[in-house]
């Protein structure tokens, strides 16, 4: 059978991480001893070695640890690119559930085997998701996709995250206290993701609200065959991003798909205030006629009102002009705190202004070409530059609201998919800035 052994107990999993920690240490020693001989050696090779070891450790785990790998791979601004390339592979591979376990899961949830419920049911998974897998089935002539979750995922998430922590702050250059509020945020989202009944509810809500957007397609979900660990929907055709690009789609088709994706996120962020926060390529199915299918609403970030009013104001030049408003927003977002010295506040504010000015570029114009690689490279470069600022590195406090974690990740995911897609997007269609400007004006007066 294709199943490799999974380190199963907490101790075993912990051992993997201890080993990885030791390997990373070893890589550093190797790097510096090599560097003594060859001073021209860049840090690239070191990062590459580290990324390999961390990835190998994570790929032997399942569930939440794999998800953390995904999270890290999306935070392109904090990780050197060698890490992200490796981690992106984690998005597609997870060892499968055995056939009898699938049957067992169905019997527990519906009192019947999948063979009794459906006309046909493929025992071999057609797709691995990070905490489960997808099977094809047919019923009354309809093709279905059925997502099945590993048993006990929710139970193991907490202990997994405890184990991931030391590795995480090693990678992210953060101390434990600083990391805590973010880990909590990730933990709550991960736990939500294990509840397929919640996902069912959210899928229907977002689908209803967004189905009018041109070129966007959703699927039907079946309540009768949904439990907290099984989710049944119509099979949605389409290709993942890399396969889609191999078909050489025209610029018009790429723009259409990119536009659908942009409008989808505009709608969610500014109207629904709840956003599909898992924009990794595996969750989008692209069709050669320019349609975009969206699946997997397991990770939905609800945006609190006061966070919304401040976070998105940072993207509006008119608001950023006022130093007082700017300072208030930075404080509300916990990017600076009243305990910071004035110098620190200034340095961080400057760096932040530089970053948001760059990040908001697509919003400044009516149309933006995400195919512009120079722009994306600038973001990476600035990200690395910011992460090297001493005031930020030495900071004992967490910088930035925990709500920003998933929102940042969403936009980084969106930007990088649109970049790979080389799409030109009409970014200025929705006028969301006006209410925000008015809000801050009345606050000033």
């Amino acid at each position, binding site marked *: *059978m294709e*199943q490799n*052994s*999974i380190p*199963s107990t907490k101790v075993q999993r912990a051992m993997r991480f201890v080993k990885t920690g030791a390997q990373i240490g070893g890589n550093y020693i190797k790097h510096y001893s090599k560097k003594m001989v060859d001073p021209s050696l860049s840090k690239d090779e070191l990062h590459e070695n580290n990324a390999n070891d961390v990835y190998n450790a994570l790929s032997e785990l399942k569930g939440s640890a794999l998800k953390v790998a995904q999270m890290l791979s999306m935070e392109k601004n904090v990780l050197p690119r060698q890490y992200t390339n490796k981690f992106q592979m984690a998005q597609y591979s997870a060892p499968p*559930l*055995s*056939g*009898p*376990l699938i*049957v*067992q*899961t169905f*019997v*527990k949830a519906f009192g019947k*085997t999948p*063979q009794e419920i459906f006309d046909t049911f493929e*025992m071999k998974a057609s797709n691995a998701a990070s905490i489960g897998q997808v099977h094809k089935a047919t019923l009354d002539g309809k093709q279905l996709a059925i997502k099945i979750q*590993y*048993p*006990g995922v929710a*139970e193991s998430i907490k202990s997994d995250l405890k184990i991931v922590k030391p590795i995480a702050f090693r990678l992210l250059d953060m101390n434990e206290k600083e990391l805590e509020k973010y880990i909590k945020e990730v933990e709550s989202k991960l736990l939500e993701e294990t509840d397929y009944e919640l996902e069912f509810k959210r899928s229907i809500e977002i689908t209803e609200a967004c189905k009018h957007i041109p070129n966007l397609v959703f699927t039907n979900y079946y309540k009768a065959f949904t439990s907290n660990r099984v989710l049944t929907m119509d099979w949605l055709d389409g290709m993942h991003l890399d396969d889609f690009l191999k078909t050489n789609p025209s610029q018009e088709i790429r723009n259409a798909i990119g536009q659908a994706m942009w409008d989808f996120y505009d709608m969610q962020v500014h109207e629904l205030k709840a956003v599909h926060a898992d924009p990794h390529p595996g969750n989008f199915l692209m069709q050669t006629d320019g349609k975009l299918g969206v699946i997997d609403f397991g990770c939905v970030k609800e945006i609190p009102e006061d966070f919304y009013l401040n976070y998105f104001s940072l993207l509006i030049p008119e608001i950023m002009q006022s130093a007082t408003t700017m300072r208030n927003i930075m404080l509300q977002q916990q990017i600076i705190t009243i305990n910071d010295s004035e110098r620190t506040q200034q340095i961080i504010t400057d760096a932040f202004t530089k970053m948001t000015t760059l990040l908001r570029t697509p919003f400044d114009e009516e149309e933006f070409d995400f195919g512009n690689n120079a722009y994306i490279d600038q973001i990476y470069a600035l990200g690395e530059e910011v992460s090297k600022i001493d005031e930020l590195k030495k900071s004992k406090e967490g910088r930035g609201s925990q709500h920003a974690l998933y929102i940042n990740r969403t936009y980084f995911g969106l930007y990088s998919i649109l970049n790979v897609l080389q799409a030109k997007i009409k970014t200025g269609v929705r006028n969301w800035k006006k209410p925000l400007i008015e809000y801050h004006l009345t606050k000033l007066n």
Partner: protein
Amino acid sequence: MKAKLIQEYIHYTLEHNNTPQSVYLFAKSVGISEQEFYNHFSGLETLESEIYQTWFEEAMHKCTTSSPWNDYSAREKVLAVFYTFIESLKPNRSFVKFLKERDFKSLPKWPAYLNGLHHSFMDHVKPILNEGIASTEIAERKYIDTKYADGLWLNFLFVLKFWIDDTSPAFEKTDAAIEKSVNLAVDLMGKSALDAALDFGKFLFQNK
């Protein structure tokens, strides 16, 4: 009648929070003569031992008649047997728990009331393992491969105990325990680095 007596036995135990102390008392509560009882079982111990055996045979029947059974590999068949049996215990969890509290100490020993289960388990698992050996899914190892079934039996007892003590919602942890322990057991039975090491050791020994 046998099935009815078994039902009555379970019922009696749960109601009295104790197993019947004699055939006389049990027969009386069922409303039959002691003599009638002996037409079906030679004693209360035999009856107890047949309870688990009956459940297992029923689970096996359910397994082998379900559609994916014939397409399953040996590994999957073993997994299916474990899952189906544990699932079939659910309606009688209180009784199973009671017996375990009464006597089911540490492995590898098992109480007399599981002897019937042991017989049936061996009868059904051995052919599955032989199938696996024939398809090379499981490695043929002299002297050791006759012990495979005994190993799985211990695995089976472990899972049974695990389920009885499991408090996770819908016994999800038991599912994970089955998946992981059986996969490990079958992995160990398959060709592995161990065989290569033994082979190499033998080579060195013979060529020195």
